[in-house]
């Protein structure tokens, strides 16, 4: 080991702040910090002065006051005497609901359109190309309004179902498609194990979980059998039975009955109502984002080189197996990251709900609450905080996924 001698002491010169690599970065960061602090101080000072001039303050206690307005779609208990915070919660859940539904259907639309666009059927692929181009190149706000207008104009109002010879009638006598929404029968249990409906549904859910576990067992058994003998037993029928039989038995025992919606007074009563604004927003977001997802899916499949398919075919794999074993596992890695960012876009675009009167968080907290209380700064801050949290959660999930499926390379 050689003994290092200290470098000759340099006297500190001012120019070193810029030209010495040791200090240079510190200097720049100090300048940045100063500029940043100045900006924040300037903006904050303006804010304080303006608020003082207007006699306002920033406080969040308005959230505890009764909201005073009603919301037509609520997943939790709420009435006009509930607080503004509760109204925000109702909106938040509605946002989550429409975003979730739209993510599911947009994926379905996107996958179908993306795959069909690669079809060797000329007409179908051109039709899908037209779908993708038309929906991608027109603003989503216009789509939301157009689809809401279509719903309102094309579907009949409940009035049309009235009278001896109504202009419209219910599908199968139990589904009503109106411009206020779709009414479907609601299942309930006559002789359920519990008095509370939700407990009975929990029983059903538990049954489904058991079915799921058993079907997983069957699949595992089939895989084991295949590994041992090479032949994979056909599992479709048993799996179907495992899902259906317990479910049907449960339904029979608990006395499943359907509550059919019926026109009473002004509206259909009973059954499940899926509100018009929800449907319009849901459909518009799905079909708009579906066009983007279709492009991602197409790109993902095309990114898998033709050589992969050929190699698999040359090994004697049938097209369906080539898809399942070779193309899809690889394509998914390419498709899923942009897919997640489309999910992010759906969540953010769901804020356009106000254009159709859907009570999402932008409409409750950022709309009516803001209007009624005049607490603009507080409401908008909370609103941004919510979306930011949602986005960060989704991105976090995406990063975890990306890390887990990254192809190993040298």
């Amino acid at each position, binding site marked *: 080991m050689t003994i290092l001698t200290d470098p000759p002491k340099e006297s500190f010169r001012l120019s070193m702040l810029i030209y010495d690599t040791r200090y240079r970065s510190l200097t720049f960061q100090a300048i940045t910090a100063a500029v940043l602090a100045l900006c924040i101080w300037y903006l904050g000072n303006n*804010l304080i002065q303006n608020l003082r001039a207007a006699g306002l303050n920033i406080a969040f206690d308005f959230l505890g006051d009764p909201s005073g307005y009603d919301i037509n779609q609520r997943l939790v208990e709420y009435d006009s005497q509930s607080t503004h915070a509760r109204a925000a919660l109702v909106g938040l859940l509605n946002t989550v609901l429409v975003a979730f539904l739209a993510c599911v259907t947009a994926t379905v639309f996107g996958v179908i359109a993306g795959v069909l666009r690669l079809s060797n059927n000329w007409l179908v692929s051109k039709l899908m190309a037209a779908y993708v181009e038309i929906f991608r190149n027109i603003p989503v706000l216009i789509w939301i309004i157009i689809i809401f207008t279509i719903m309102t104009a094309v579907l009949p109002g409940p009035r049309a179902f009235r009278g001896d010879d109504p202009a419209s009638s219910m599908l199968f006598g139990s589904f009503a498609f109106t411009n206020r929404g779709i009414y479907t029968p609601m299942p309930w249990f006559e002789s359920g194990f519990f008095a509370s409906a939700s407990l009975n549904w929990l029983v059903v859910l538990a049954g489904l979980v058991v079915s799921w576990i058993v079907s997983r067992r069957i699949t595992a058994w089939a895989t084991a059998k295949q590994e041992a003998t090479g032949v994979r037993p056909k599992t479709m029928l048993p799996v179907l039975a495992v899902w259906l039989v317990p479910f049907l038995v449960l339904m029979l025992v608990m006395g499943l009955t359907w509550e059919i919606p019926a026109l009473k007074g002004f509206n259909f009563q009973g059954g499940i109502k899926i509100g018009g604004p929800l449907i319009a927003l849901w459909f518009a977001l799905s079909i708009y984002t579906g066009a983007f997802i279709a492009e991602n899916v197409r790109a993902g499949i095309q990114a898998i080189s033709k050589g992969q398919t050929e190699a698999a075919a040359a090994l004697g794999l049938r097209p369906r197996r080539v898809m399942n074993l070779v193309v899809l596992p690889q394509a998914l890695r390419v498709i899923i990251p942009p897919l997640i960012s489309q999910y992010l876009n759906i969540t953010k675009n769901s804020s356009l709900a106000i254009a159709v009167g859907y009570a999402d968080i932008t409409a409750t907290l950022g709309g009516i609450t803001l209007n009624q209380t005049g607490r603009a700064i507080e409401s908008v801050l909370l609103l*941004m905080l919510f979306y930011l949290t949602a986005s960060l959660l989704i991105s976090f999930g995406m990063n975890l996924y990306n890390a887990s499926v990254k192809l190993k390379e040298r």
Partner: protein
Amino acid sequence: MSDQTSTSVAFVAKDTIPPSPPPGRETGIVKWLRENLFSNIPNSILTIVSLYVIFIVLKNTMPWIVNGVWTTSSLSQCREVLNGETGACFSVLTERWNQLLYGFKYPVDQYWRPNLALLLMIVAAAPVLFFDLPRKLLLFTAVYPFLAYWLIWGGSVYVPLIALLGFVAATVVFQTFGKGSFAIGFFGAIVAAFVVWMVGGALIPETASENALLSPVPSRDLGGFMLNLMLGATCVSLSLPIGIVLALGRQSDMPLIKWVCVIFIEFVRGVPLITLLFVASVMLSYFFPPESSVDLFLRVVIMITMFASAYIAEVIRGGLAALPKGQYEAADSIGLAYPQAMRLIILPQALKISIPGIVNVAVGLFKDTTLVSVISMFDLVGMIRGPILASTEWNGVYWELLGFAALLFFIVCYGISQYSQWLERRLATDHR
């Protein structure tokens, strides 16, 4: 070949077989139909379903379009003309044409100004979009913003002129001193620009805008599709430099700068544009000095620019990451300082790779400018949802107006995205 033992193997073609046309069933329309539409049963079903869908769509829209009425002055007159038949009332488009395009307040006799500005914008954008054009045209691109500002807002010509002079002074100073030390050139340029603006600003006569060549138009009077185009073009071009700075900042190895950029980008990308527009409409005023008020257009431009720059920063970051590491190392090894390396080596290449992505962001942003209708600005959608549908004459004309808006956006966005695809193909071959 006489001494070959395996004569069965040896073979020499005596003559060249000329190419022949494929067998009959392999040509013409029959083959095309068989291969492309009816190759197997599922395909044939798909074809028939598609044909049915097309038929339904056409059946429902064609009579409506063909019967369209173009010359009445209100919806009730339309209904009279149609006399119960299906048909569109396109008269709303002809009658409110100007409002849809320019908003309802822009002076009618001044429409040539935005028109000219749009035309010049194409000229100004051309050298950026097509690399083959002479680089000298970029000079016009640099002047264009000031020219367009003057054309659209009118008022005193001194204002854009002095603003431009400030930038010219900054460039000159930077060119002179920037060679020696980047920092001196950079800060010198800023100081020079401000000096020019201060002095020039003081020299503008108070009454300059009153007897100006082009009458001043307040930004509140801008509207219609013109407003969408202006917001889109302004915000994208403003967000480019900011996006570049943010992207470089995010790559920086100085933690403070890096984290400031990361937080800004992730924050902006995490919230919907509409909340940022709420900020512009209900919150931002509180952040300006108490004695001044900044009008809605500028506030919206600030927020949309913030929004766009975060997205553009991410695209450019992708471009920077796509550059081979060797380029950075090569730039360092020939002794270029960081600003020089960025300006001369890295950015030109990274930006070129990023252009398709930037164009995509621009298209998305342009579509999103319709959201300003939610905060009571009368862009194309705002005009339709506001004054036109609220008017007595056209109350109830939805399809024609929404369809027109959709068509306009489609034409512009589809055009731009086709350009971006062309560019992508071209870049793909350039890089081979």
